[in-house]
């Protein structure tokens, strides 16, 4: 927005300018917790249209801002005080940086005169957050507040999105200034080194179109950038036009519908064998907003050895960082895909035809038939299988349900067993792998999409890191639902110790009944249900889905020994994917 509703020159404090600037940026909700240095900013908040969610820990504020941004595409805002509050925000900033989430952090700082004196709650916030933000700024004068806010939002939301931070000394908030709302041109002029490339290079686009038509074993390798560029529709058009199969990475689940015949699901360390192998055997990878993360490529030297690569990404530094592309295209994914579609149509109009991919398609369907995701159902009287609980949860979920997850086995099972048929319904911490992400992220998501059912799928380890935000959810009336898969362990680490450290379990056992999750959840104002037997699963989910006035926690006591399959052990080639033990007999068909 570039027009102001306030007369230029109006006198106000830096704090008032801050809050008005946030309103002008279209902020409707922010997440935070006040303290000494940021106090001046909390006063004008009382008159503001902005809803403030008072969190119980600043990390929660950051993850809520992320969850909100994930599902709305709008920047999430977290406001906290100086010192320990600013350091508590570091994890969510890094998380947002890794996953390219637009987010603006606002921190209080000691008065300008006290900077550098080790004053109470002083910390070098811009220094500490330099490498976890796309940009940050210490604002030294009340006159610079509005420009700093505009820059922070502009940088957070354009190009490759990411977190920005503005650090505001207390006197800057208290001092008087005159309202000035910089125009778009002034913002651009103040950032002469910041000009994201949007449109693809025409020659490269044409070359990409040619390669796509010539490929016999192509795969569309789709990453989170598709969602950031709001390019799901363009992707679908490209896939359907060319009939090329699609894999969606952990960050891109939902960008292409899981129920689409061309969708192969998730590749990577815990991807399904078909998605992994299709990439591996491909002769053309069309990477769209993906970054060749090590969890996708496995051992880079033996990753997709026969594939040419078209790499579309808005961040030039992603081109060639891991794998040298044959056709690099820097630009906005949506625009570039539309350009590629047009180039393909032009070539076809000129008489060019697409290579025959029938053999490739039938190989892929062979893998899909032989290597579906699978688990062994629990024997009567034995502990629940987590996958079974997730299938029931999925089947009972209203359409458009948003799922947020923590980090660990439960995250991988959710990504595997959920059906993501709509973009922006999956919220998770991919790049940083932040335990404790799900509950605050689900709260942020529910605030962004109050019309949707929001389930947080959590592990017992994760739950204990951020569960206190359920208090926030109760008090602020944000009725999220938590499916707690209690396997009594730091399950993912336990799995690695079982498989790669000779079953030598070191510091991974938590406890089954300490804490008592039902009592804990109830004490935080939630409806709480414990589920131990298969026949209790559906009724509990039904009951949880019916609650709409407060948060619900369903604790599923699940099998501690269950492992996530398939698995590509860290550092190994994708050729060495370990399929589920029951599929080992046909292992050689993965060729």
């Amino acid at each position, binding site marked *: 927005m570039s027009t102001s509703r306030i007369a230029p020159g109006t006198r106000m404090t830096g704090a008032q300018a801050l809050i008005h600037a946030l309103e002008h940026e279209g902020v409707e909700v922010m997440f935070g917790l006040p303290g000494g240095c940021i106090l001046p900013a909390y006063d004008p908040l009382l008159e503001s249209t902005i809803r403030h969610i008072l969190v119980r820990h600043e990390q929660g504020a950051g993850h809520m801002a992320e969850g909100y941004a994930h599902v709305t595409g709008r920047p999430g805002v977290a406001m906290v005080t100086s010192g320990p509050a600013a350091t508590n925000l570091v994890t969510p900033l890094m998380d947002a940086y890794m996953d390219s989430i637009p987010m603006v952090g606002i921190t209080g700082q000691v008065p300008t005169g006290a900077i550098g004196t080790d004053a109470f709650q002083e910390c070098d916030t*811009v*220094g500490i957050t*330099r490498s976890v933000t796309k940009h940050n700024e210490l604002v*030294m004068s009340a006159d610079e507040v509005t420009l700093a806010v505009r820059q922070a939002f502009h940088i957070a939301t354009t190009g490759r999105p990411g977190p920005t931070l503005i650090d505001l000394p207390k006197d800057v908030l208290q001092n008087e200034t005159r309202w000035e709302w910089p125009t778009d041109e002034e913002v651009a002029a103040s*950032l002469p*080194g910041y000009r994201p490339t949007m449109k693809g290079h025409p020659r490269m686009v044409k070359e990409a179109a040619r390669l796509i038509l010539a490929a016999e074993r192509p795969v569309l390798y789709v990453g989170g950038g598709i969602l950031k560029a709001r390019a799901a529709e363009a992707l679908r058009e490209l896939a359907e036009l060319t009939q090329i199969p699609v894999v969606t990475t952990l960050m891109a689940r939902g960008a292409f519908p899981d129920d689409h015949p061309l969708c192969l699901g998730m590749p990577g360390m815990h991807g399904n064998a078909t998605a992994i192998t299709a990439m591996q055997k491909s002769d053309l990878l069309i990477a769209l907003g993906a970054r060749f993360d090590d969890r996708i490529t496995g051992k880079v030297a033996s990753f997709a050895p026969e594939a040419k690569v078209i790499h579309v990404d808005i961040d030039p*530094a992603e*081109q060639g960082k891991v794998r040298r592309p044959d056709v690099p295209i820097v630009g906005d994914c949506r625009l570039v895909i539309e350009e590629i579609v047009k180039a393909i149509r032009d070539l076809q109009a000129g008489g060019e035809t697409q290579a025959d991919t029938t053999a490739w398609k039938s190989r892929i369907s062979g893998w899909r038939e032989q290597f579906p995701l699978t688990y062994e159902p629990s024997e009567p009287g034995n502990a629940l299988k987590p996958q079974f609980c997730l299938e029931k949860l999925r089947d009972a979920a209203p359409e458009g349900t948003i799922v947020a997850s923590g980090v660990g086995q439960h995250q991988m099972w959710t990504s595997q067993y959920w059906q993501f048929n709509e973009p922006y319904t999956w919220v998770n911490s991919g790049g940083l792998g932040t335990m404790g992400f799900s509950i605050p992220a689900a709260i942020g998501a529910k605030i962004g999409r109050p019309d949707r059912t929001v389930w947080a799928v959590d592990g017992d380890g994760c739950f204990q890191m951020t569960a206190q935000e359920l208090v926030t959810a109760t008090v602020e009336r944000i009725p999220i639902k938590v499916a707690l898969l209690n396997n009594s362990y730091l399950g993912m680490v336990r799995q690695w110790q079982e498989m790669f450290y000779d079953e030598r379990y070191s510091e991974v056992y938590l406890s089954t009944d300490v804490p008592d999750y039902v009592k804990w959840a109830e004490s935080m104002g939630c409806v709480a249900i414990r589920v131990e037997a298969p026949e209790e699963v559906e009724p509990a989910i039904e009951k949880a889905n019916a609650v709409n006035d407060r948060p619900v926690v369903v604790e599923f006591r699940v099998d501690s020994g269950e492992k996530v399959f398939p698995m590509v052990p860290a550092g190994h080639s994708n050729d060495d994917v370990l399929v589920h033990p029951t599929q080992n007999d046909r292992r050689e068909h993965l060729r």
Partner: protein
Amino acid sequence: MSTTPAPRNHHILSVLVQNRPGVLARVASLFARRGYNIFSLAVAPAEDEGMSRITIVVDVDSAPLEQIVKQLFKLVEVVKISELDPRRSVERELLLATVRTDAETRSQVAQLVDIFEGKILAVGVEALTVSLEGHPDKLDDFEALLSGYGIVELQRTGRVALAKIDRQARLRAVDTGKGKVG
């Protein structure tokens, strides 16, 4: 500074940045975080108001250099990056050194300074402080010769560099006497 000469395959990056607080820290921490080595770095205000030019000498193969440039360019304050080809740029550096001398060696050192067209800045009973400005390779040679006498203290600025102007422009500069090209 170390007395090791610049690595054989060194690259010179001339980086134009907005002159804002913390910009040098941003550049330095980027190098540290991505595991790149800086051989030398010099920074000063540039011709445009509000801009600084940072001359960075890095020692890398060309592939990571591409990454360094791209990552640097992601810093919001970085406006322009030119990689200067040593064959097509002018490089300069300043060296200050205090060298141990006695009655016998003083004149030898003075003669060296003379040959290199350096300057003697201060003369003491047991030492000379000398300066030399020039191409970093020349400074390396000078430093090596001085070290035979015993260098008490040494400070080099790290190199600064600019692209050579093309022949036409160079002639023009000489014609008008405005720019002296060294």
